[in-house]
């Protein structure tokens, strides 16, 4: 046995503690087919054996918009920067929903998939990524609803305009995805050991929505709370989103740059924590 040199080329070395900074991007890339399979599975299994099928994607944002228009628009009389109320809320809800879905669904990824994770190895990051991607499909469908509504208000003569910032749209979606993913990864990594956090997620995301400019514009926020609201990286994204599609909102290089920087930091932090946890979470989940 000693004839074999110690410097042999091994394809894989498994050790107790891996390198701390390893995003495992190349490994994830080699499993890209699996990512697509998971997306397909999520999508197909969502509407199988339902009567309305993908129509369900519309129902939730539609009803939320109606309720928001009634409660915040009519009863509370919050400002919508002069935009048609349903359009204002729909924009916020569509964008926020994507971010919120990314967080809540990724935050339970270890718990929900412990069955698969306990039996076969693949880069664990594939599953959260597939969640973000399949939510993207859902987001796309909801964007259709939103543009349909825009078309309706354009014909009915609502006051809004599409601005140059629409070119930023893909970037905004990417930011939301990464921010949701990063936060979700951190939460799921911690929930494997401390289940308490999972109770906090849905509740916390709901509260966070009121800290973001979903139901009110930043311009209408009271001056002393403005900075606090701006600290939330989602504020810059939602404001930019509304500015791009409806022409009202606060879009500055600083606000978007801040959101981008925070997102990047959270994403990298999330992946690192996740990769550290995935190595042995099966033992504790």
């Amino acid at each position, binding site marked *: 046995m000693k004839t074999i040199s110690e410097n042999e080329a091994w394809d894989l070395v498994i*050790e107790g503690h891996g390198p701390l900074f390893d995003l495992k991007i190349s490994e994830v890339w080699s499993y890209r087919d699996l990512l697509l399979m998971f997306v397909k599975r999520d999508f197909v299994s969502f509407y199988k054996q339902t009567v309305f099928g993908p129509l369900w994607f519309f129902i939730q944002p539609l009803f939320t918009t109606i309720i928001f228009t009634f409660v915040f628009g009519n009863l509370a009389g919050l400002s919508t920067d002069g935009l048609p109320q349903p359009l204002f809320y729909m924009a916020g809800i569509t964008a926020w929903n994507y971010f919120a879905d990314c967080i809540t669904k990724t935050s339970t990824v270890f718990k929900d998939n412990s069955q*698969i994770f306990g039996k076969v190895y693949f880069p664990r990051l594939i599953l959260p990524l597939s969640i973000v991607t399949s939510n993207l499909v859902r987001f796309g469908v909801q964007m259709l609803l939103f543009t349909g509504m825009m078309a309706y208000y354009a014909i009915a003569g609502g006051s809004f305009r599409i601005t140059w910032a629409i070119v930023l749209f893909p970037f905004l979606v990417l930011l939301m995805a990464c921010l949701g993913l990063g936060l979700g990864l951190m939460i799921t990594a911690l929930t494997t050991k*401390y289940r308490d956090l999972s109770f906090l997620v849905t509740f916390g995301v709901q509260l966070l929505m009121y800290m973001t400019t979903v139901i009110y514009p930043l311009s209408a926020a009271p001056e002393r709370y403005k900075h606090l609201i701006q600290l939330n990286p989602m504020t810059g994204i939602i404001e930019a989103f509304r500015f791009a599609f409806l022409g009202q909102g606060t879009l500055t290089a600083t606000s978007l740059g801040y959101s981008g920087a925070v997102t990047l930091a959270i994403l990298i932090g999330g992946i690192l924590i996740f990769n550290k946890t995935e190595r042995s979470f099966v033992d504790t989940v």
Partner: protein
Amino acid sequence: MSVAIRVEALSKMYQLGQIGTGTISLDMERWFVTRVLRKPDPFLKLAEANHREVKGDSNFVWSLKDVSFEIEKGETVGIIGKNGAGKSTLLNLLSRVTSPTKGTIKLKGRVASLLEVGTGFHPELSGRENIYLNGSILGMRKKEIDQKLDEIIDFSGVERYIDTPVKRFSSGMYVRLAFAVAAHLESEILIVDEVLAVGDAEFQKKCLVKMEDISHNMGAILELCKRGLLLEKGQIVRDSDVGTCVASFLERDKHRQPSERSDKNGLLDLGRISINNEYSYQIDNSSPFEVTVHLAAKDIANATLFFIVENAFGQSVVHKRVSSAEIGHSVIDGEFRLHVKIPTLWISPGIYTMYFKTIAPATGWSGRAFSERISVEVTGQAEASGKAFMNPSVTWSMHPEEAKAEALLV
């Protein structure tokens, strides 16, 4: 030959009991000790060997401790051990489901692991969709699955249902489909756990032919593997050819059972066994031998005496009986030595169990007495193909056809 897997001082610690309460404080303590004080992890020291039955003092156990071995390219190795010996832990570590506490594993080549069939099957998806999903989970590329799709469907034998959601499959069909996918994995290293315990006999055979791998089932282990690793309490206690390993496992499991009697009056008693007047338990399969047992009885009439030899699977190889009257003692009273002379036993080499048993009307039929059970190592010539249990010495001859006719005439 080159090494495909090298495992060095592999250890895995598990925490028993409820994980949750106190975990934050434990984690903080551990973090403080290891990272701030730079001392070895206190919980690693606390951990003890994994005795399943014995209640330990520590909540941390070593499921595997300092396991090292190498597997060459092209070898099939069976991992044998009791429940909780660390088999699954070892396979989990090899397939990267969880990571070791200490030690390293080095692998060469593509690894495919089958710890379960049908991982990730989604009940709502059709058979075909699940082939793609399951195949991808096991690490196949889509192109690969495309190429093998027809082969997989054909192998599974559920072509008719292939576009039906798998939740409508019978459990047998489900397993067939799942196994078909697994059977078409191409890899240099294949790790398999307990999966062969599924499917009907016909399908199992098909899979055995297709895969040649490892399993829980002793018969399959013997059939498939050349080398065995016997695990006990997280450590390798034997690394040898698989036959010896299985035998040694079954033997360890039973241990050496002392004599027992269910007759409470102590009227009839069997004691220690010796072979050829010695307490060394080894016999050659091509020589005759004599077995002796100590017997004590108080005025027992019409006793029946048995001599039994069992193979490693608990099947009787020899089962002889005699009434005491036949050997000149219609009533047994006092202490005796009971002898059995056995002509050559042409059984294949391995570990066998040997014991005596008696029953007598006086003690009641339930009042049987057993001698100690000893394990005997049979040595000698093995049958060359490795398929037969016996290798008797036979005489071959061949004669022209007329010779036979003549013989008939005589």
